[in-house]
């Protein structure tokens, strides 16, 4: 391929990097502006907005609420997702395609439809809108991501290892707990972090299934509807730094774990 082509493609790549980073960088900068008005140019800087949100009980409470929801929903998604993956991977049985289809369904349903389907179902089951309903909807929505990641990892597990364990007298459950599960650790970790982030960032399900107490994205949305303020930038920046840090850490950790275990 010619040099000119290569340079043009490199330019497109870096332009794309700018496209995905610049809005976030601008948003972070705006959180340090010493004025209530959102807009450029920024003439003087301050940390006031950060001290304000860290002393705001509602923000802290919302943050804790969101973290609890994402941790609990992730635990459910991971447990169920692994179970489904173990059933589906490497087994042939009648109706497998249908079960696989049902497994991926929540990941394919557009956000608004998924949210209102959960809302209607929660009402039918008489689950009140609130924390339980949000946790449940996040858990169900995230199961396919766990199952797909775990299935991909499971397909690379040498069958001989399980057979060896069985020959040495391990029953299926112990073989699973001592051979399969440790082998799956990197996939489980990666999937868990992905679920945590999906749940923490989710807006539409939290919005339709929430009670009076908002999750962090719902709070930011509500604040935005009543006008932009640097306070929102500060909250968003904290959320951004946290999610990006967890994402990067997980990426590095899973890569290391994969190298160590295979």
């Amino acid at each position, binding site marked *: 391929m010619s040099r000119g082509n290569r340079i043009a493609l490199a330019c497109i790549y870096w332009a794309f990097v700018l496209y995905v980073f610049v809005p976030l960088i601008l948003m972070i900068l705006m959180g340090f502006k010493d004025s209530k008005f959102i807009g450029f140019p920024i003439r003087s800087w301050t940390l006031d907005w950060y001290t304000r949100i860290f002393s705001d009980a509602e923000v802290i409470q919302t943050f804790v609420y969101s973290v609890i929801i994402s941790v609990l929903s992730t635990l459910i998604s991971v447990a169920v997702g692994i179970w489904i993956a173990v059933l589906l991977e490497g087994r042939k049985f009648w109706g497998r395609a249908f079960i696989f289809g049902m497994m991926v369904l929540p990941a394919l349903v557009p956000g608004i439809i*998924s949210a209102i389907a959960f809302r209607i179902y929660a009402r039918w089951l008489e689950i009140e809108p609130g924390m339980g309903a949000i946790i449940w909807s996040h858990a169900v929505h995230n199961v396919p991501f766990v199952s797909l990641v775990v299935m991909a990892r499971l397909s690379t597990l040498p069958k001989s290892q399980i057979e060896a364990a069985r020959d040495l007298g391990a029953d299926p459950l112990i073989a699973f707990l001592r051979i399969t599960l440790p082998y799956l650790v990197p996939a489980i970790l990666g999937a868990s972090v992905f679920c945590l982030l999906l749940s923490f960032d989710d807006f539409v399900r939290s919005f339709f299934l929430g009670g009076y107490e908002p999750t962090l*994205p719902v709070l930011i949305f509500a604040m935005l509807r009543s006008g932009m303020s640097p306070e929102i930038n500060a909250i968003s920046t904290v959320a951004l730094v946290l999610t990006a840090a967890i994402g990067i850490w997980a990426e590095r950790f899973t890569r290391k774990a994969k190298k160590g275990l295979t």
Partner: protein
Amino acid sequence: MSNEASASNAPDGLAKTEGERLFWGRLANWGPYQTLMSVVTLSPRRQFFILATFPILWLLTQHLGPMLQMLRVSLLDAYPIAPDVAQEFSLESYFKFFGDRIFWMPLFRTLIFAAVFTLSTLLITYPVAYFLARHVSRKNQMLMLLILLIPFWVGEIVRTYAIMILLGNTGALNLALKWLGLIDRPIPFMYTSFSMGLGIVYLTALYMLLPLYSALEKLPKSYNEAAADLGAGAWTRFRRVTLPLTIEGISSGCTLVFLISTGFYATPVLLGGPSTTVFAETIAGFFHVAGDEWPTGAAFAVIMFMVALLITGVFQRLMKSLRKGDSS
């Protein structure tokens, strides 16, 4: 056995494996556990039954259940059902959709928007994926892909807000244009289909980039070299070799992005205006008010899902036939 060999060098490791082994041994020899396992593992059939029951129940009640209940509610004449009134099935909610322009227009608009945004995402991310997969060394590939992933870990609302700051009347883009002397007065980017499109492409780009990247990465470089040896120019090589062989990636990326784009609610609310009302906002409207509008909302959601599935189904068929036609 390799465990023991490595453990002999490290006394801590030995203690740990020893403790672990004791635990598993004790569990395996524990009476109740043995009874349980002998019941469970009696036959392969029973083992499978025990393994399969919970996942199948979960999938039926949690994954399929909400969709079926939504379908059921969409066919009721009122929901929630009043205590003394018999519930009746009716198609009224579906007729309502076709009866009024303010209902079907947003769906039409949503589908057009989603198609345009999907195509834009494809055109933007294809060169990026191509560059990463073909022109970057293996070692740098992961790093350069990882750089792109970072913004996508940030949530929908935060990224939408970032776009608002970029495009506002006193936003960075208007400031930059003014500074360059291109404009005197700020251009109202916000609350238009442009701001909405930029926001939605920002949210969905990753879902396109990853399938494209994995399709391009799998493609052996030798194919292109062979085509070059046979005298094909750069454009011909791309059109006749690379493009047909990455159609699967394009097809799955477009399907995913199209379905996701139709479902955004917060982004159109925050970035769009009155002229860009999407169907998600129409559907949501029925759930803000008291319960008796739920059947209509449910019916509209069913209509949107069916239409979106139909479009992606036809699209995938088309892509498949395109691929077959090219290879023959």
